[in-house]
């Protein structure tokens, strides 16, 4: 195993490569601003020296005053460019990371993501990606100038008074040492913090989703306490992180403050002539004041860096979670013989709406000695041999937990077989419908077009009719433009299921996978849907349906019985269509 920390850092570094130009610009502008500061301080010290020791009238120095203003303007401009360029770099990188993550989630498929909280994932893709911001926008550019500016300042101070430079230098090496010590602890804690935040989010959504259940079970008072306890635990954990994070900047402050105090006292005593050794007797008000003004600037880049240090820790924490997600292996379609395992949707030739190639019946699906296993649940199916002819309707029956859904998931390409071979004739689209109809926030038409983005209104209506939903839609004043809430608010369970079924019709997919499609429908609606399914079968689609319901079983050409304990197949008798 590679050191995961190293991987996280390398990943962040690779990402930085994508916005190299902007990051360089930010660093360069930062350095320019720093150089302006040096010039500004030098001019200030020079002016004071002229005013005090030479007793020059201020009017005689007006050119220098104007120059000082000019330097200030240049510095402000450089600073603006630094912030802006850093933000741009971060923005580009975050956009890329988010895109990659979305691609990866899509490739992982629904079953691999099944044990993850979708809100947790949403949080990762929004908040954790945003957590990379500070690192690229502020930390990295600041790091560049931290490598350059203190050296420049030290050189300037050394040229003025080497002993003062030595005083600064004395404090300097202690700083990275402390920073490293403190930073290591903070980094670990910060990662824990991220886990805590994600867990807290999951904890919340779970309770929010199940708030009805909590009400019904009279557990609301307990759950409020639980929520408070979780939040308070989060506070305690955060404080542990913060104590260390703040310590690192406190150490820096301390050295910076002490160094400034020492330099001030050294220069003061030197100017009084109390110090008889070294370069002290050559000190003037100009060099003394210049050194004093530069002393805080010597530490400033590091102090700013330490303020942004939590940005880095946050990015590393986020990187860990995101890399873990990106590292999750994608189902590779092992054991598949046909080209149907593709992760990327490719243009397929949809089945024509009406034509029926009745004589062109080949084999649509072939399974040889296929087994399916789930982590933590062991083998759930197989070994199974099965051939499904094109245009055939097969019912998968058997007790719940016997692997009906898993077999459908395998056919859809969401999971890999544990062993055996699988061949599917058609490329996607495949039509899919399960026990929980999936609905998005949007209009009815939006929800239908999820299956066929280009479909015309007439096609939508046709699909709605075939799914037995037309009476419902007719009764809505806005018709297909009626908006739905999350999880289909506004539709009953049966209506939502019929909407999902309308999508199946709309997709014209040659292979249709149905998981308990009529479980939540009443008798009347059920027969409407079955009528539609009959039409679907007649139009030449291959249908595989997992069901407990007699009516659906009767519709199928063939039943495949999957058993719970023996986990082997028994092919039942052909049923009359």
């Amino acid at each position, binding site marked *: 195993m590679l050191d995961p920390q190293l991987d996280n850092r390398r990943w962040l570094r690779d990402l930085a490569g994508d916005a190299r130009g902007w990051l360089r610009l930010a660093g360069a502008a930062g350095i320019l601003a720093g150089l302006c500061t040096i010039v500004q301080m030098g001019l200030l010290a020079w002016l004071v020296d002229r005013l005090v020791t030479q007793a020059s009238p*201020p009017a005689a120095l007006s050119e220098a005053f104007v120059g000082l203003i000019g330097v200030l303007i240049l510095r402000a401009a450089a600073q*603006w460019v630094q912030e802006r360029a850093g*933000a741009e770099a971060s923005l580009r990188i975050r956009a890329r990371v988010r895109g990659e993550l979305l691609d990866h*989630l899509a490739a992982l498929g629904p079953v691999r993501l099944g044990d993850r909280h979708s809100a947790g994932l949403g949080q990762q*893709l929004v908040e954790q990606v*945003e957590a990379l911001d500070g690192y690229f926008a502020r930390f990295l550019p600041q790091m560049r100038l931290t490598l350059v500016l203190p050296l420049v300042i030290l050189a300037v101070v050394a040229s003025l008074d080497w002993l003062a430079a030595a005083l600064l230098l004395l404090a300097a090496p202690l700083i990275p040492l402390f920073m490293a010590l403190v930073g290591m602890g903070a980094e670990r804690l910060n990662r824990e913090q991220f886990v805590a935040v994600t867990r807290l989010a999951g904890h919340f959504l779970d309770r929010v989703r199940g708030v009805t259940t909590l009400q019904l079970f009279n557990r609301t008072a307990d759950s*409020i306490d639980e929520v408070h306890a979780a939040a308070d635990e989060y506070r305690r954990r955060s404080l542990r992180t913060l104590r260390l994070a703040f310590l690192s900047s406190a150490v820096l402050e301390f050295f910076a403050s002490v160094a400034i105090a020492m330099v001030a006292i050294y220069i003061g005593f030197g100017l009084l002539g109390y110090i008889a050794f070294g370069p002290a007797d050559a000190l003037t008000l100009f060099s003394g004041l210049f050194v004093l003004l530069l002393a805080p600037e010597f530490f400033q880049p590091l102090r700013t860096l330490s303020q942004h240090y939590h940005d880095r820790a946050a990015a590393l924490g986020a990187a860990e979670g995101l890399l873990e997600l990106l590292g999750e292996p994608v189902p590779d379609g092992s054991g598949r013989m046909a080209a149907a395992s593709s992760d990327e949707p490719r243009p397929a030739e949809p089945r024509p709406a009406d034509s029926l190639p009745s004589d062109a019946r080949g084999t649509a699906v072939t399974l040889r000695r296929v087994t399916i296993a789930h982590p933590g649940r062991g083998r759930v199916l197989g070994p199974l041999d099965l051939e499904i002819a094109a245009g055939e309707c097969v019912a998968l029956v058997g007790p719940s937990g016997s692997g009906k859904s898993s077999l459908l998931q395998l056919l859809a390409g969401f999971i890999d077989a544990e062993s055996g071979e699988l061949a599917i004739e058609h490329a996607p689209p495949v039509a899919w419908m399960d026990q929980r109809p999936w609905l998005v926030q949007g209009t009815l038409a939006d929800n239908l077009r999820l299956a066929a983005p280009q479909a015309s209104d007439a096609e939508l209506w046709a699909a709605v009719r075939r799914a037995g939903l037309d009476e419902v839609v007719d009764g809505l004043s806005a018709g297909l433009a009626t908006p739905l809430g999350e999880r289909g608010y506004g539709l009953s369970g049966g209506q939502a299921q019929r909407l999902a079924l309308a999508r199946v019709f709309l997709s014209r997919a040659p292979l249709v996978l149905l998981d308990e499609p009529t479980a*939540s429908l009443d008798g009347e609606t059920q027969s409407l849907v079955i009528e539609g399914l009959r039409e679907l079968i007649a139009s030449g689609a291959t249908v595989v349906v997992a069901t407990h319901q007699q009516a659906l079983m009767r519709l199928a050409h063939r039943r495949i019985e999957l058993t719970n304990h023996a986990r082997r197949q028994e092919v039942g008798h052909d049923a009359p269509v």
Partner: protein
Amino acid sequence: MTPRSEPSLRDDFAPWLRRLGRRSRRLSAGALLMALTVASGIGLLALSGWFITATAVTGALLAAGAMATLDVYVPGAGIRLFAVTRTVARYCERLYNHDTVLRVLAELRAGMFSVLTRLDGQTLSQLRASEWLNRLTADIDALDGLYLRLLAPPLVAALAIGGVGALLAWFAPGIALAVVVPLGVLWLWLVFGQAWLGMAPARRRVASQDRLRGRIIEQIQGLAELRCYGTLASHRRALAGEETTLYADQRRLASRQALGSALVNLVVGGCVVLALWLAAHAEVDGRISAAVMVMMPLAVLALNEALGGLPQAFTQLGATRAAARRLNELAGRQGTLREADAPHAAPADKPAIALEAVSVRYPATLAPALEALTLRLAPGERLAVLGASGAGKSTLGQLLVRQLDPTAGAVTFNGIDLRDIALSELRARVGYLTQHSELFQASLADNLRLGDPAADETALWRVLEIVDLADWARDLPEGLETWVGESGRQVSGGQARRIALARVVLKEPQLVILDEPFSGLDAATAARIAARLDCWLQGRSVVFLAHAVDGLPGVARTLELLAGRPRE
């Protein structure tokens, strides 16, 4: 929704300021520590400058052979003192203030969740789960900025400007005025101008980040369909649209925030130059000493630190405001179930339920969900309420457990109106298997114990036996400790349903409402469970909600609903 005028900034923040006010002692202590830090920074730089110049002048005099003395020990000690207080005060301030804020946040979070738990079923079903989550976490988190970034720092910055002004005025009131006026204008700009510049994009950014999160969650939940239909790409385009809006506003905000930072440096720097220019004249006139002349610009220079954090805080004010407003809306939402002022104890006898001409009408719907329904359930009786989806069965269930109050009519429990019974007492006596059963992300045992937190393992196995899951659970590598994922995806749909049923059984309620208890089960399993359930239901009052009466054990009477009315 009735159009209302937008709440003002003050309306949005007032409840939160009041809440903060309750901890005013802690907050003032925190602000004092913050002020002490800033004051030490100003003192360190100003005193050092004064000291160096004073020593230079004295040194020059001494070198010229003149008699001159300078007390070096008091300023030296002062410099060291400022150096130490600055460090210590800052460390304490940050830790102390973060602790305060996180305490407030933990309270807020629990408070907001409790608002949620009091809402009725109808209101709850209208909101997106992801929105709730966001309100409870991100929005409350965003409010930590209220004190730490938006209240204390501008206050301290104003104090610092005033303090530096006072210091300068001690020596030369004219110079103080000349410097404090532009600094005051800068302060006003940073607080009000930056807030104004950032308000719209910051609020939009929050909104588009929300929509983006919602879209992403949608896509994750719908991956099965999207992948199968090959329509991921088009859904991704909708997502990309949200991203583009988000990035455009982020860009705008970065630009405006950078403008604020540049202004701080420019104006403070300008005031340094101004102070030096004016002080030089004052020194020539003999009004101030050379050392004081140097001290003045350096004191102004140190103000950079006090003002540096303001541009970011106020440019992003809109985000904090959006969070505050959404939380206010949540807290003020209608649809809360009222507890009776002096609730009755629920009668201990077996429940007899009666509905007297009950109607339920949901807002923004034409037809009522239930219309003038009268219904009686004798103690120990089993009633099956039948009907198509949308006929009003779930509404009836929600009424019986008081997740919903009738629009007209009354529901009584042994003759007492449900609204007069303490909610917790009522719900302790009623078990309701809803149409959509939610499992929590927890172990199988924890999910079952929702029904009875004190249940021992024997009791858990007993209820698993009733729902025919005991063999399955025994085969699981981790047994009762098996983790049950989101919406129970780790278990099949039918298994999740049975776990939810087991939970109700474990609760041992007197009134049992079962909504399609056997949906998604094969006939053999359903029959086995029905037989065991029949036994357990003996002596309890039962309402089944179903499409058909087939397979429901021991039903004596049926009532068929059609569009919210009994079928004639």
